[in-house]
């Protein structure tokens, strides 16, 4: 991550952070294509302002705010689609490349987490953000970020235990 965003190295930066960014964006949108749109807009905006890639909190904060804007803009379309596809099973694109049943169970358990816990988990596990960076990106305190993370792990563990 020792990059400063510039014309030459944006590809290195982007290829390193893109999977995590996409996963983060998928916390708000179900479609992978929508998530890619959000990530593209956020990354381009980030690069244009020439932020240091060390300040990752800003990048994730941009993804989050663009995703929230996207949801607001997209409400009408979502309602229309919900009417059209009412009664049919929605096809949800996978967020992970699953290799076995254990991983499928983990991914399913992730989906059942409350949203605020899931976003902290995604930032911590798959984006390697510190609690300080997570706090900056989500505009919460570090303690809140840490406790949400613990709750998320605890809830996941509980849901995966055999009944």
């Amino acid at each position: 991550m020792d990059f400063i965003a510039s014309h030459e190295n944006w590809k290195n930066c982007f290829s390193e952070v893109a999977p995590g960014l996409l996963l983060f964006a998928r916390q708000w949108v179900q479609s992978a294509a929508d998530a890619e749109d959000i990530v593209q807009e956020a990354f381009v905006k980030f690069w244009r302002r020439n932020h240091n890639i060390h300040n990752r909190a800003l990048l994730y904060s941009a993804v989050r705010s663009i995703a929230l804007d996207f949801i607001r803009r997209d409400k009408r379309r979502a309602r229309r689609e919900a009417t059209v596809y009412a009664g049919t099973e929605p096809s949800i694109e996978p967020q992970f490349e699953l290799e076995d049943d254990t991983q499928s169970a983990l991914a399913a358990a992730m989906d059942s987490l409350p949203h605020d816990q899931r976003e902290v988990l995604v930032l911590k596990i798959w984006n390697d953000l510190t609690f300080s960076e997570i706090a900056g990106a989500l505009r919460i305190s570090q303690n809140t970020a840490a406790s949400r993370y613990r709750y998320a792990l605890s809830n996941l563990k509980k849901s995966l235990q055999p009944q």
Partner: protein
Amino acid sequence: MNDFSEFENELKKLRPVQPSPVLFERVEQALESCGAGALAGATPVRPPYNWWWLGFGLATAGIVVLFAAINFEREHRLDTATVAQSSPASEMRPEAPGTEQSRVTGRFVPTGGTNVVYNARDEGLHFADGSERPVRRVRYRTQQIWRWRNPETGASLRVSYPSEEIVLIPVSGQ
């Protein structure tokens, strides 16, 4: 947190879906076009100032200029009268030939004035003496600057002084 370290490792084994190669191309195009100064679909860079404050500042400046213009108009008439009154009486009289030059050189013409309202305070409703209708009392503190110039000699005179004005505005009953 140690209770969860094994579990965290399990989670880290889950690999997020990779972005499509098209995404890289799209980002590259967007970055190139923004380098040329035209990034379609991207949020424009905000100017370093806030439009609300700019608008507010302009509105305030407009009000100050309006006050200045109104007061200048009023004071200008008053000052012209005062200058006329304080001028030597000989100006009003028919002059003997040859004395015109001396009259002109001693004459100052008002060239401008500024009245800057730097504080306006609403002092609330009051009843003026003997009146049953309330009036709103507004106190204006201003700095007035007046300038005169002698067109012949080029000499100028500038007077600056603070002033205070109380305006009583009748309030109509609803």
